């Protein structure tokens, strides 16, 4: 940053000054020998001072500021010398110069220079003898010049020290300010991250809080609809239910997105059957037929039967892309879903000949709350979060969701994921693994979020897909609209208890002569008679919390097909 002075530099500096002074003195001696004119002496004398100072400035590479300072001193010196020359008072300036030198140096160096000057003059006088013909006035002049030179050079050194100290001080102040600012910026960053997390958590909690009463609304509408005989009112209920389902979907998107933002969403890798991907596509066949759209699924032959990955997220991404493709493709259009597996990567591509995306919107299409344009939202609805969620899920799983589109002609969304192939030949089949891998779809009726996550992870680990009903009413409603292999029912839930929900489900099954879905009670009540109480309520089985993983698998195997059998 800046040059540090040290004893070696100081010695070099003094040595340089001695050499330069010697040269100057020799030149002055020569001038004294050949000139007797007083005015000429003054000019030469002054010129020597200037030459010496300039040489010093040039050799030492003194910065411009010091050059200016030196010049001022030179001018002052020059005026002093000239005025003294005219008025014969030159020697009277001598003591103040010494004082100034001492004042500026403040150290022993002033004495050293005085000694050098005195010694030089004495030496000159002794060597030169009477030929030199130096008067006392001349000696004083010479001494004054020497001190003046010393003053200029040393003044620079002193100032250099002072300036360096100032620079150091300024530097440390700057460093301190930079540190303070860095700390402030860091605090602001932490605050912003915390605010973002708080916002996301708030959003997640709010979404959860909104979803719970919405599920209650849906549940009660289902119950009212079942008992309603009036055709007109049935239609009204259907409209309310449809609107309510759309709202739940939007809330679910917000919930998923806020989970992503607050880092509460994580990838759960588990072995899965790739047939599940084909099944997901099949689910959209009815919707495609309804819209008179050709849905063509192309699954290449090289897809392994089992892969290790997060089938929930893959399915959700696929659902979203398929749903979008069907939504934006007009009647008589086509949607091609291509699935292949190459070099340990599962590739999925979704091509439609729908409305397409304008070129300028392609870069922002995966950003949250973004749709191709405002009219898209008005015409097709949606939260604008679906693609942002898909993109984030694909990224979490190690891929990248990409898009190609021509406005007015259609779009192609595609991604590939690195997934490990699971070989499940009978020879390699491990008994415990075989016993812990089931295939089925479970409804988990549970209000506690930690238990939802725990059970969800457990289901995913043993290959089961699942949906969560956060209360009894939602369980009644969801079991009426979807098909499950088994329902796991918590006892204590808001809006409707597990026992009451079970009774409602059983009543509906009986009235509508539906196939019975086994219901397993899931509760932390382990008191005597509890099991009997649940069985008496119509539940098929009972498992207590804390859930033992092996017991749970054993119990589920009673009701869900083991895929290895």
């Amino acid at each position: 940053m800046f040059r540090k002075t040290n004893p070696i530099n100081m010695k070099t500096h003094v040595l340089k000054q001695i050499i330069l002074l010697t040269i100057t003195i020799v030149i002055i001696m020569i001038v004294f020998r050949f000139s007797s004119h007083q005015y000429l002496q003054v000019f030469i004398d002054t010129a020597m001072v200037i030459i010496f100072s300039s040489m010093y400035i040039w050799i030492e590479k003194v910065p411009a500021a010091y050059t200016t300072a030196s010049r001022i001193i030179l001018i002052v010196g020059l005026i002093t010398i000239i005025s003294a020359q005219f008025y014969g008072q030159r020697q009277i300036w001598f003591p103040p110069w010494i004082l100034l030198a001492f004042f500026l140096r403040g150290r022993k160096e002033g004495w050293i220079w005085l000694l050098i000057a005195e010694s030089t003059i004495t030496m000159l006088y002794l060597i030169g003898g009477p030929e030199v013909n130096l008067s006392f006035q001349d000696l004083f002049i010479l001494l004054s010049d020497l001190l003046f030179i010393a003053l200029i050079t040393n003044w620079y050194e002193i100032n250099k020290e002072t300036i360096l100290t100032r620079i150091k001080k300024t530097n440390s102040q700057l460093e301190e300010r930079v540190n303070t600012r860095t700390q402030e910026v860091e605090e602001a960053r932490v605050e912003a991250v915390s605010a973002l997390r708080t916002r996301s958590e708030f959003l997640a909690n709010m979404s959860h809080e909104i979803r719970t009463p919405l599920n209650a609304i849906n549940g009660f509408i289902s119950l009212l609809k079942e008992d309603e005989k009036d055709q007109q009112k049935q239609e009204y209920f259907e409209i309310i239910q449809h609107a309510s389902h759309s709202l739940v979907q939007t809330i679910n998107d917000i919930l998923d997105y806020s989970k992503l933002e607050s880092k509460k969403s994580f990838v759960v890798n588990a072995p899965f059957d790739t047939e599940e991907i084909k099944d997901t596509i099949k689910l959209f066949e009815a919707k495609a037929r309804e819209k008179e759209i050709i849905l063509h699924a192309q699954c290449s032959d090289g897809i392994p039967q089992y892969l290790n990955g997060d089938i929930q997220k893959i399915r959700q991404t696929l659902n979203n892309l398929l749903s979008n493709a069907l939504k934006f493709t007009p009647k008589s259009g086509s949607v091609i879903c291509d699935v292949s597996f190459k070099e340990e990567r599962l590739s999925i591509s979704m091509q439609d000949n729908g409305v397409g995306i304008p070129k300028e919107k392609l870069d922002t299409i995966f950003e949250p709350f973004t749709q191709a344009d405002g009219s898209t939202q008005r015409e097709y609805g949606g939260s604008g979060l679906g693609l942002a969620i898909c993109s984030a899920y694909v990224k979490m799983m190690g891929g990248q969701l990409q898009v190609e589109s021509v406005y007015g002609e259609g779009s192609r969304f595609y991604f590939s994921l690195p997934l490990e192939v699971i070989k499940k030949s009978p020879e390699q089949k491990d008994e415990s693994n075989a016993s812990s891998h089931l295939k089925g779809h479970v409804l988990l009726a549970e209000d506690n979020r930690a238990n939802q996550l725990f059970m969800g992870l457990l289901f995913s680990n043993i290959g089961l897909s699942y949906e969560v009903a956060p209360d009894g009413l939602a369980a009644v409603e969801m079991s009426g609209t979807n098909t499950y292999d088994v329902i796991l029912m918590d006892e204590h839930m808001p809006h409707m208890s597990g026992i009451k929900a079970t009774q409602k489900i059983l009543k509906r099954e009986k009235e509508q002569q539906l196939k019975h879905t086994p219901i397993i009670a899931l509760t932390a009540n382990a008191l005597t008679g509890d099991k009997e109480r649940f069985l008496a309520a119509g539940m098929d089985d009972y498992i207590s919390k804390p859930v033992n993983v092996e017991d749970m698998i054993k119990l589920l195997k009673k009701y869900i097909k083991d895929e290895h059998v």
Partner: protein
Amino acid sequence: MYDLEVIAKQLGFGLDDVKTIVKVLVEEANISILKIDDMFNHQAWEQIATEVHSIKGSAGNMQLTALSELSETLEQAAQIHDTQQVEMLINNIKSTLQQLQQQL
């Protein structure tokens, strides 16, 4: 206090998954304990038992034995309206949750 790595191994879950679930569990339990505080002020014994029942279940699932046992004892103490015991157990659960939070 709790070795989350051991818990993850026993459950066959990833450590990050366990941490996420325990974090959610602590958040929910903290909310529950606030409600329980209020219920205790109103001597709402039945409600205390119902509320702590949820902590007991989720803590048990995650093999947080001490928390689960404290919750079970609180549930029982609330059922027999044991004011002193309930107050002490609420405080114990609070400090257990605090310790658990520090571990995450």
